[in-house]
């Protein structure tokens, strides 16, 4: 991840990455924002989703 200029955004708490977006294998710009959902994911209300 650090080889590229991805901007990482961590959602939730914990050490283990439960899910990632964009998904593995997708073609993305090398300066994209990557969201990593950690093991204990925050509730919808606390997240920044709609």
């Amino acid at each position: 991840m650090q080889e590229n200029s991805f901007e990482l955004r961590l959602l939730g708490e914990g050490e283990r990455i439960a899910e990632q977006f964009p998904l593995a294998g997708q073609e993305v710009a090398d300066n994209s924002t990557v969201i990593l959902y950690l093991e204990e994911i925050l509730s919808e209300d606390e997240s920044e989703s709609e």
Partner: protein
Amino acid sequence: MQRNKTHNRKKVVIFFTAVFAVFMVLVGRIIYLTAIKGDYYTEKAEELHQRERSIKAARGEIYDANGVLIATNKTVCTISVIHSQLTDAEKVIQVLSQELGMTEEAVRKKVEKVSSREKIKSNVDKEIGDRIREYDLAGVKVDEDFKRYYPFDSLASKVLGFTGSDNQGIIGLEVVYEEYLKGTEGQILTLTDARGVEIANTAERRIEPIAGNNLYLSLDVNIQKYAEQAAQKVLEQKQAKSVSIILMNPQNGEIYAMVNLPEFNLNEPYTLNIEIEENLSSEEQQKLLNQMWRNGAINDTYEPGSTFKIITMSAALEEGVVSLDDTFSCPGFKIVEDRKIRCHKVAGHGAETFVQGAMNSCNPVFIEVGLRLGIDRYYEYFQQFGLLSKTGIDLPGEAKTIMHKKENMGLVELATVSFGQSFQISPIQMLTTVSSLINGGNRITPHFGVDVRNSEGEIVEVLSYETKEGIISEETSETVRYILEQVVSAGSGKNAYLACFHVGGKTATSEKLPRSLKKYISSFIGFAPASDPQIIGIVIIDEPVGIYYGGTIAAPVMRELFENVLPYLGIEENYTEEEAKYQTQTVTMPSVEGLTLRKQNH
């Protein structure tokens, strides 16, 4: 004596008069039957001595937008026996059971039945039919007819539909365009004896069938395949129950692709695409088949959630009850009558303009806007936008919007409807309405059928569809496009952002009923280029496992689709100066799921 003679003469006269009268009646009857009713009885007599066998007409073929054949006919055979002409019944039973893969018992039952003609099996492969013909068995008839064949198997299965054993459309476009596709059956007329059994070695009279016309669609096999792959990928990744994608031209309603995963094999439409328990009753199996054939994008409704804010936004802007820089305050909820309706962001979005409210997909902003419109005006816009009617798509079984009756609508209902809750709508209705709001305000009819051509390729009919102009003004439509572009470039829809194509769109996450089940529908509606939309699409992911936000899981699917489909449609990349400055290389996203933060940093 004289008296007796006179009496006898009278008797003779009466007798001959009676005979003459009877004779005249008979002559009259003969004249009536021959001269007046002659044609009728000749026809009846011919009917009695003739046996008709229909010859299936070749059903019209279906082609995609590029002329790729997507539904055609395969020659198959119907095997039958004429009992009176059989000379070696045992050999017939042995050959037919072996070639047709039937038990000897089943074949024997049919062969030994005394009937004018007994059908053994239909839809038999031509190669098998040819082999049976080579045995030259007396009394065995091999007639050629057609079976529908779909070269791409499951591609667009719920759109194309399939035909039954009588070659008649059962679901999908095959049903809607039946009249154009079916053609006219031919006939084979043979002579029969008094028992109705065909007379051997008499000439057959044939009336040749007329092939059906060919149907040309807007569906593009390349786009459809691409959309199916994208849907399959997200279906597997999110272990979702189903995924639907529709891609359409928002200017004229031509549909490029419609995916409803899981699809099924059109060449084996009675084979379920799921594992089933053994000993399932035929009723239960039929129920599962009906479910498998169901086109969710047309036949089902869902609670749209935040994508419906596009409708509230359009009505409010058109009515002039809100402007782009109106300011709102979101404390994380809004009180309507006795109800506290929460925003998805409990802490609240704070002060925000209307555009920011749309970018944040803020519920209190849209509740306020809906309340400003009021029940009467909002309801008028439902009607004006065409939301309360069906879209008129050329597919069967379209579901209607399930909306509160106006008289039952209070302020709480108005508030929830304003941000897309408490009612149900079909995906095609949602997409069509948004198309009409961003295309300049023309309500279009979504469709697949473009024209009908005969076997020589000459156009027989150009299919036309209704358009209702001016459901909103061009100015309002332009403003809606601007807001929705902001939603994608810097708001909740940013995962659909493509620097070079100026995408507009709106995300949605709706909780399925009952809410306690915590099952969700994630969706995204996007269009591009925002200034002059040439394509619009909807992605709906039903019951994703894990992360379920529309902006997180549905918007990237649309981004990936647009990235590939827009260049394919010849839509040129258009970078702003700012975007060109920051134009970067693309890389393949590595997999970091399951890793710990420390490991991934190394």
